[in-house]
């Protein structure tokens, strides 16, 4: 496969991952009393499937689409104002998390333990950005911000990490058939 075709494939895959991240803001699967929104699972998968650079590109395009006003953020909203709103920190955290997850995962060359480690690190990056910004914007104490913006979602995050492993295992061969993220360091 020539370089331009590979580049085009990576671009289209990153676009589709960005669209899936947007779709993830709309879809919830009820597991237990709290429905699980799939958005941050899809952010983690962008890093795992596309690697650091293209994972970051994918989330960057998602954020850009939201910035120009497309309804891609949670609750069907969009606009640049969302970035300075209370959930703006999570949005920026998504970009950092996708990059870090991708970089760690690339070094693990498909190892399950490394992938799990990468997702745990990525999850805490999202909360670091999200809770810090939530605290600044709403003026809550750090304990209240953590109680509102992190603790209720941790169980769901554990389930998402557990689910991501078999999903990524079954999807990697499809992607690797076209572009080898781990070998090319894309």
């Amino acid at each position, binding site marked *: 496969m020539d370089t331009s*075709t590979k580049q*085009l494939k990576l*671009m*289209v*895959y*990153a*676009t*589709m991952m*960005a*669209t*899936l991240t*947007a*779709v993830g*803001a*709309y*879809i*919830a*699967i009820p*597991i*237990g009393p709290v*429905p699980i*929104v*799939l958005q941050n699972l899809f952010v983690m*998968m962008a890093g795992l499937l596309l690697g650091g650079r293209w994972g970051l*590109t994918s989330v960057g*395009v*998602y954020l*850009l*689409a939201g*910035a*120009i*006003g*497309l*309804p*891609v953020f*949670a*609750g*069907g*909203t*969009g*606009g*640049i*104002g*969302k970035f*300075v*709103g*209370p959930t703006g920190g999570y949005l920026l955290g998504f970009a950092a998390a996708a990059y870090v997850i991708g970089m760690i995962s690339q070094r693990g060359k498909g190892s399950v333990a490394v992938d799990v480690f990468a997702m745990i690190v990525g999850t805490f990056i999202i909360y670091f950005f999200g809770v810090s910004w939530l605290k600044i*914007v*709403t*003026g809550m104490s750090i304990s209240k911000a953590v109680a*509102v913006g992190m603790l209720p979602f941790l169980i769901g995050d554990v*389930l998402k990490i*557990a*689910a991501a492993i078999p*999903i990524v295992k*079954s*999807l990697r061969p*499809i*992607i690797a058939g*076209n572009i080898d993220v781990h070998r090319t360091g894309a």
Partner: protein
Amino acid sequence: MLGSARKGYSTMGELTAIGFKPGSSPLHRLDPRTKQLVLMALSVTTLWADVPFLVVNSMVMMVLFHSAHLHARRLFLEIRYFLFFLFFVFVVRAVSFSDQMFPVITPNEAAEALTVCWRLLLIVFMGVLLMSTTRTADIRAALIWGMKPLPFVNERMAATMVGLVVRFLPLILFQANEIGDAMRARGIERRRNPLIRLIKFTTTLFRRVFLRADELVDTMQARCYSEHRTLPELSFSRNDIIAIGVGILVLLSAC
């Protein structure tokens, strides 16, 4: 398009109806770069502003909404999910617990909580105003213009990718609903392990999307895809200078 929430898989919202609404109001006629610049400056100032600035800002918003023919009822309907969030923020900020663990609301804390909610609501209103009075293609062109000086960013590729997101978002949402329906029809809700639902749904959705991605690559290559495409022309006018002047005056009222 997405239907109401159903048991098994549900949609947390619908594609919002807040989008570009054609018109000839002063806001419609402004350059999108001016609108984005003023919006960003006002949003950041609003976050830390006091009540007098919020009053001035709210009055300006009301005038702009009126001139753009945007109705308050429809607006509140569209942002109803965000209003729930604001209520939550208000409760968390305003309610504290006494020594006997009774919930207490003091007037000072309630006033502070209301101010925080007021600021957040204004920021959302400003975003809605921008989206309602600016074409997506114009906002995209403004973003390309804004991204040009950034190193390591291919602004034309970014624009193409955003265009594809616009095209594929409704299609993938539709597919996600189809997969949810198909899985329910096959009795997925009877599976005891909750992770199975998550894994089966996500794997199927991703497989279909990547299959479509491969088809899209072939289609783009067959049509000699190139990053160099024609963009809408943007130009600053006298109205933009006036708008920036008004924006600066409003910002100064925060000092």
